[in-house]
């Protein structure tokens, strides 16, 4: 329990760090999502960012203290603390948008930019490793086969949820959903990742007409890093879900695995995801440094697109842009053009599971 508290504390700190760093990730090229001059960035910009940091740190401390107080005085509510993170992220977003509005008046727009495009066709297969896919497939299929094998031996009432000490606190009737719930969710999530990976093969890559070859090489590498990050997360997720789905057997397999083992699995795999994310962010930073060394600047922004970014460069809505996936304005990686109709396909798929579960819940099937 106390280990978990430390883990969540570290996780919260990691989030705080990212949110503090977010507006200055691309320096003056996208300061709070706005391109400003170098002078503005180092004078007024620095002051604005300092104020943003103070607000963020103060609210972080406040939310952490409230969380600690609750966890000391209400030991029956161990989950209360976890609510702090989403509250903090929402608060940080509000601060971010407020400060982004202060930066907007300093925007500079570069004229006469010329752009290039790569003519290489990227296929999903270029970003797929067969070995990894087999591994992921096994982490889904093997637990399913084990569950099918033990299905007749399971009692009519099976545990589906456990408290912090590892004692089941929620039970369900034995049926297809309660036993195979996690493997089904895993297959669904893999599908979502595949959909995103497919979309990302056609990502819009902004290339300046100067130093095009170097830019293209660096941006292709960036795409490769992002794709492999998604693969790594996919693998860790399927290992985690595979392990967790076997949890319901813990009661009938004597001397089998205990809940401690499963909790350890959760923490270790989450830690791994964090480490991998941090490592990939580091790799992306290296790529940006390389671009800066080659071309003297890290980011090119099309002047006609500059005002189609909303909420301080977090949200892109441009009906004139046929692209679906675009490079992020703030931070590394890719985001979507929400004016593109194909976004509905992704949102629809994303909502499939939550809506489906809610409907099943209403119908009393769960």
């Amino acid at each position, binding site marked *: 329990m106390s280990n978990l508290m430390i883990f969540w504390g570290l996780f919260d700190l990691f989030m705080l760090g990212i949110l503090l760093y977010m507006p200055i990730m691309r320096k003056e090229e996208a300061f709070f999502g706005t391109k400003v001059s170098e002078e503005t960035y180092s004078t007024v910009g620095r002051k604005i960012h300092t104020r943003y940091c103070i607000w963020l740190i103060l609210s972080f401390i406040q939310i952490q203290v409230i969380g600690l107080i609750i966890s000391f005085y209400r030991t029956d509510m161990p989950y209360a603390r976890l609510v702090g993170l989403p509250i903090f992220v929402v608060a940080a977003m509000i601060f971010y948008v407020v400060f982004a509005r202060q930066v907007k008046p300093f925007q500079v727009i570069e004229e006469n930019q010329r*752009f290039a495009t790569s003519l290489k066709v990227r296929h999903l297969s270029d970003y797929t490793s067969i070995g990894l896919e087999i591994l992921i497939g096994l982490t889904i299929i093997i637990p399913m086969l084990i569950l099918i094998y033990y299905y007749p031996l399971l009692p009519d009432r099976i545990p589906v949820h456990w408290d912090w000490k590892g004692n089941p606190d929620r039970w369900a009737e034995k049926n297809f959903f309660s036993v195979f719930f996690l493997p089904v969710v895993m297959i669904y999530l893999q599908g979502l990742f595949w959909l995103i990976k497919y979309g990302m093969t056609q990502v819009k890559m902004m290339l300046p007409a100067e130093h095009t070859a170097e830019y293209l090489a660096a941006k292709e590498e960036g795409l490769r890093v992002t794709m492999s990050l998604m693969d790594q997360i996919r693998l860790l997720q399927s290992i985690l879900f595979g392990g967790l789905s076997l949890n319901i057997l813990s009661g009938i397999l004597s001397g089998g695995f205990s809940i401690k083992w499963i909790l350890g699995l959760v923490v270790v795999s989450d830690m791994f995801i964090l480490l991998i994310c941090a490592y990939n962010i580091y790799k992306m930073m290296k790529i940006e440094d390389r671009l800066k060394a080659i071309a003297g600047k890290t980011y090119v922004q*099309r002047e006609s697109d500059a005002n189609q970014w909303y909420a301080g460069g977090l949200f892109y809505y441009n009906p004139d842009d046929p692209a679906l996936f675009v490079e992020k304005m703030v931070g590394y990686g890719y985001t979507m053009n929400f004016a593109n109709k194909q976004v509905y396909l992704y949102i629809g798929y994303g909502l499939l599971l939550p809506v489906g579960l809610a409907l099943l819940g209403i119908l009393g099937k769960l």
Partner: protein
Amino acid sequence: MFITIDEKDRRPIYQQVADEIKELIARGELSEGAPLPPVRQVAANLGVNLNTIATAYRELQREGFITVRHGAGAVVISTKVSNNEQDELRRPLRSALTQLVLAGLSSVEILEIVTQELRQLIQGGK
């Protein structure tokens, strides 16, 4: 392998795109059977209208360089101009030479430019 467009160029954008692709074919960077990216992707990257790129692809298809199959995208099918009529081929050269003569360049200078450009075009490919 990339193409560039220039707003200051007097040629229309679709023409620039078609010409750049033809240059890549001439240099051997795009060989027979090579696929071209979807119209949507090229248009997004260059920040131009979908129709502009579609027109460029249609132009290339009309000249017999590529085929645009529904669903499968565009593929290079020929690296040679289908029209082999000498007169037809000479016409663009004649108009380019006229421009150079009108610009007041001597025959020697014009020949040098032509040799230079030709060498660049051929040596450009690896």
